[in-house]
């Protein structure tokens, strides 16, 4: 391809490419002319016309071979060959639509599932956060005495900020749930209070407006807010004049000073479905009661300096924390600081399940490859005549292998194309039905990465299942082909190959189904856990009071009124109020200092979950009262301080004694003593798979929250009652926002969303694998039986009973299947331990699951081989004998 030839040869090449018919005709004409001239020459030499023509023809040699050689000489480039192969391949596929359809569908399922999972993994795990140098962003935690992470406090944060040399900046964050007040209604927002340095530290460039100023991070100047992009669009319609305008939050007007960009992820929200909507400066100072050193309710975010590594920062923070621990021994339960990269914090929890799913779906693709390879082998066997013809015409082995490979790639690319479509649908479905609570899920798109992955996987798949059949099909044993009978050595080898494919299918399917079985069992076990209350027929609503109504006395009165009204509604069995809902995501913990059992360093005393409740709550949730009494009208703000403790707390502090009458202090070691008046059953708070914790219940008259949950036990339609309750509250005060209306069943369901996601998808992929295996075995047996029709006929004619022949076929079919099952079992035994982190209360080698899956698979394999075998034995022996 020397460049100076181009202007001569380029038109030539283009002609060869685009005007093939013309070129072919010219070639024929040229040869024709030659032959005529030769014939004339011989005729002139004395031969008859007929003889002359024949002699000329003979001397020329293989016309077609020559033509092929000419074509080779004119080869434009591999493009023309490729196009030719593609065209031919398409035609062949169109001639066998059933085969093509099955193959493409199988591939679409396999490649599509992989693409879907990959796009989720890419969007959630692999795609970097939209922060510059995000590897430098760390979360800083204090350490509990059991080594777990703990929130930090204002005083500690200030010291960290002052003393460190590792970080370019440190910011503190606290939850904030302001109520935005409109003309007629109010709504509770998800928000955060942040240090003024926060957005700069993250490296966020605001969409509009400006960041907080340091002087706004001071109490009194802090009535400014930055809105999230989504909230700005949704609530204010993307009003471009919003900067500088006030927004009414509670009793105060906050000035909007900035809007965040659309791609700013909600990295601090616990629930990915409730992204942050509004931010305001933290504005703490040392005079505030909750700025104390042991008030652990803040989270800290920091950015490493360019020159400092995480290990170095870790070492320095450790030193600093030891210094602080030394200086304030009663304010810390343990020294030490834990650094977590921000990305880990955001997605670390879901990494295991997502990678496990990718592994699972990879096996599904392998099964699909095995099946399609099988199909291709059968198809190739049918095309032996064609192969022989082409070989006779001069096509080399390489050329034919290339042709078959092109067809395989065509199949896999078509399958990949449909698979992409399936993947798109799958991801959209996932996002819409909130099946999983994955962070960043809403940002997952089918993008260029997904395309690249799909294309790459399609190519690899096409090569994987296509190579072997391509080589087999192009191998030519002319004698065998022309013989036309089914029994040949090539036939026997094909038979063994098909057996190998059944073996592979079953082994892979067993592996997959075992994983699926374990995940399902784990999920079922999780759901069987007793949460400590009765979630059926229980409605919950969140109320938050603001302004003057949020003070203790009016709040208590308001809640009392609400309960009175709600209890009179038809269909309401009982109702109560609680400050934190078990499994609801919110938590409040305090150190408990039990009389006579408190440690010298009060920070080392254990922490309990704190619930403030009204009478009626325990009944509404059906939390059992085990000893003593519930709270009632006697317990008011002025009466002696009382408390209920849960079973675990009773057991921990007063084993073998009666806890009723015992005393403890909560939080403040100088605070009033609280007397235990009763013991209630444990509830699970953090999750169904969380350990039991010690829990304390206080009367809401003695510890009042302004944001509470109303729990209502209903005896009929919950939706109706929810509407009724809401209207009661609105009637009482339309400016009290009612949010998060959900039944306890829904709350529990949401708390296990990710486990359900994992289990369901594993089940889905297991089911696909099972179907593919069944279809594969069915196909193999059908084909094999069709090949052996002659032999079957002979057996039957010679007197074999139908059921003998049937069992022969089935037994031969089951041999590779059983071997495959054995291999699959061994592989499963070794590999399922990779899932152990995802399993709840289930061993990765759970024998019941293994046995059940084995039986299922063997049963399916039996059925898949029985049906075609039965059909075969139904054949009339006379017909079978005549079948060649």
């Amino acid at each position: 391809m020397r460049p100076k030839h181009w202007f001569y040869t380029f038109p030539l090449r283009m002609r060869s490419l685009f005007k093939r018919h013309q070129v072919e005709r010219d070639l024929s004409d040229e040869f024709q002319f030659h032959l005529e001239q030769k014939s004339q020459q011989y005729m002139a030499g004395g031969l008859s016309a007929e003889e002359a023509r024949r002699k000329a023809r003979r001397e020329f040699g293989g016309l077609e071979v020559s033509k092929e050689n000419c074509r080779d000489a004119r080869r434009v480039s591999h493009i023309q060959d490729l196009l030719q192969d593609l065209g031919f391949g398409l035609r062949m596929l169109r001639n066998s639509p059933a085969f093509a359809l099955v193959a493409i569908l199988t591939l679409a399922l396999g490649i599509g599932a992989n693409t879907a999972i990959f796009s989720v993994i890419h969007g959630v795990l692999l795609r970097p956060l939209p922060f510059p140098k995000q590897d430098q962003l760390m979360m800083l935690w204090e350490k509990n005495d059991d080594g777990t992470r703990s929130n930090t406090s204002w005083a500690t944060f200030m010291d960290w900020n002052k003393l460190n040399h590792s970080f370019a900046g440190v910011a503190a964050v606290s939850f904030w749930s302001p109520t935005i007040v409109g003309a007629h209604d109010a709504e509770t927002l998800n928000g955060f209070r942040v240090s003024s340095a926060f957005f700069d530290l993250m490296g966020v460039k605001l969409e509009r407006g400006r960041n907080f100023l340091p002087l706004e991070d001071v109490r009194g100047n802090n009535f400014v807010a930055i809105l999230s992009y989504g909230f700005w669009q949704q609530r204010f319609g993307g009003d471009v004049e919003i900067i500088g305008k006030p927004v009414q939050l509670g009793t105060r007007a906050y000035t909007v000073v900035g809007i965040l960009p659309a791609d700013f992820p909600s990295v601090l929200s616990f629930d990915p479905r409730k992204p942050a909507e509004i931010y305001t400066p933290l504005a703490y100072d040392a005079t505030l009661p909750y700025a104390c050193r042991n008030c652990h309710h803040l989270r800290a975010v920091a950015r490493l300096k360019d020159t400092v590594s995480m290990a170095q920062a870790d070492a320095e923070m450790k030193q600093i924390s030891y210094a602080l621990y030394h200086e304030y021994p009663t304010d810390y339960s343990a020294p030490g600081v834990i650094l977590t990269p921000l990305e880990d914090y955001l997605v670390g929890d879901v990494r295991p399940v997502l990678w496990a799913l990718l592994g699972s779906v990879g096996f599904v693709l392998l099964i699909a490859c095995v099946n399609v390879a099988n199909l291709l082998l059968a198809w190739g066997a049918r095309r032996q005549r064609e192969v022989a013809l082409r070989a006779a015409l001069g096509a080399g082995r390489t050329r034919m292998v290339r042709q078959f490979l092109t067809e395989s790639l065509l199949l896999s690319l078509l399958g990949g194309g449909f698979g992409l479509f399936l993947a798109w649908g799958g991801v959209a479905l996932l996002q819409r039905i909130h099946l999983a609570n994955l962070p960043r899920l809403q940002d997952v798109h089918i993008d260029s990465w997904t395309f690249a992955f799909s294309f790459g996987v399609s190519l690899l798949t096409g090569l994987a299942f296509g190579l072997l059949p391509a080589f087999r099909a192009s191998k030519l044993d002319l004698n065998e082909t022309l013989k036309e009978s089914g029994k040949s050595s090539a036939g026997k080898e094909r038979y063994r190959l098909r057996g190998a494919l059944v073996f592979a299918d079953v082994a892979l399917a067993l592996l997959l189904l075992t994983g699926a079985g374990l995940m399902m069992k784990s999920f079922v076990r999780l759901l069987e856990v007793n949460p400590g209350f009765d979630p059926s027929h229980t409605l919950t609503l969140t109320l938050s009071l603001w302004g003057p109504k949020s003070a203790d006395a009016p709040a208590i009165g308001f809640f009392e009124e609400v309960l009175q009204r709600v209890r009179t509604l038809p269909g309401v069995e009982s109702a109560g109020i609680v400050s934190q809902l078990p499994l609801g995501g919110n938590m409040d913990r305090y150190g408990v200092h039990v009389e006579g059992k408190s440690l010298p360093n009060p920070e080392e005393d254990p922490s309990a979950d704190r619930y403030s409740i009204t009478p009626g709550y325990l009944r509404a949730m059906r939390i059992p009262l085990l000893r003593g009494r519930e709270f009632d009208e006697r317990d008011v703000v002025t009466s002696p301080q009382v408390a209920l403790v849960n079973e675990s707390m009773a057991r921990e502090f007063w084993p073998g004694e009666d806890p009723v009458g015992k005393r403890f202090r909560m939080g403040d070691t100088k605070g009033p003593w609280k007397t235990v008046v009763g013991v209630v059953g444990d509830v699970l708070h953090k999750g169904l798979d969380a350990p039991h914790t010690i829990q304390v219940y206080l009367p809401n008259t003695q510890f009042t929250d302004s944001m509470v949950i109303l729990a209502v036990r209903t005896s009929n339609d919950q939706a109706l009652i929810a509407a009724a309750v809401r209207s009661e509250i609105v009637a009482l005060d339309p400016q009290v926002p009612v949010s998060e209306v959900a039944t306890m069943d829904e709350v529990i369901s949401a708390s296990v969303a990710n486990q359900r996601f994992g289990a369901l998808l594993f089940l889905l992929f297991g089911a696909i694998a099972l179907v593919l295996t069944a279809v594969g075995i069915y196909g193999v047996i059908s084909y094999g039986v069709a090949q052996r029709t002659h032999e079957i006929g002979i057996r039957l004619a010679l007197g074999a009973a139908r059921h003998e022949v049937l069992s022969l076929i089935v037994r031969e079919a089951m041999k590779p299947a059983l071997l495959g099952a054995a291999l699959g079992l061994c592989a499963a035994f070794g590999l399922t331990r990779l899932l152990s982190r995802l399993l709840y209360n289930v061993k990765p080698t759970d024998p019941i699951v293994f046995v059940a899956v084995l039986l299922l698979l063997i049963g399916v394999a039996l059925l898949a081989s029985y049906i075609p075998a039965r059909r075969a034995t139904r054949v009339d022996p006379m017909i079978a004998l005549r079948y060649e």
Partner: protein
Amino acid sequence: MSKPSDLVQGTLDLLLLKILALEPMNGYAISLRLKQVSGDVLQVSDGSLYPALHKLEQEGWITAEWKPTENNRRAKFYSLTRLGQGQLEKESANWSRLSSAISNVVKLKEA
């Protein structure tokens, strides 16, 4: 019909180019001329003639045109291009070098 001997196999291009340098002609005429000029020693099989011609055309050393013959039949006539002229010279020079080297070896007297 024998193919040119193995040694000459690679020089088929040279032969074709030379013949076409003299005058444009169609494939059949080329094969006749070659046989004629070489005294029946060099005979190209019809099956290998055309692929060779097509390759030369693809390289740009000869170009083709459909023209009527004397008997008013349509035939594809090849002619040498300027590039082909250069290639011919190059290959001629190579051939001279090769053949004289071989002659030198063959002419060596036994010691």
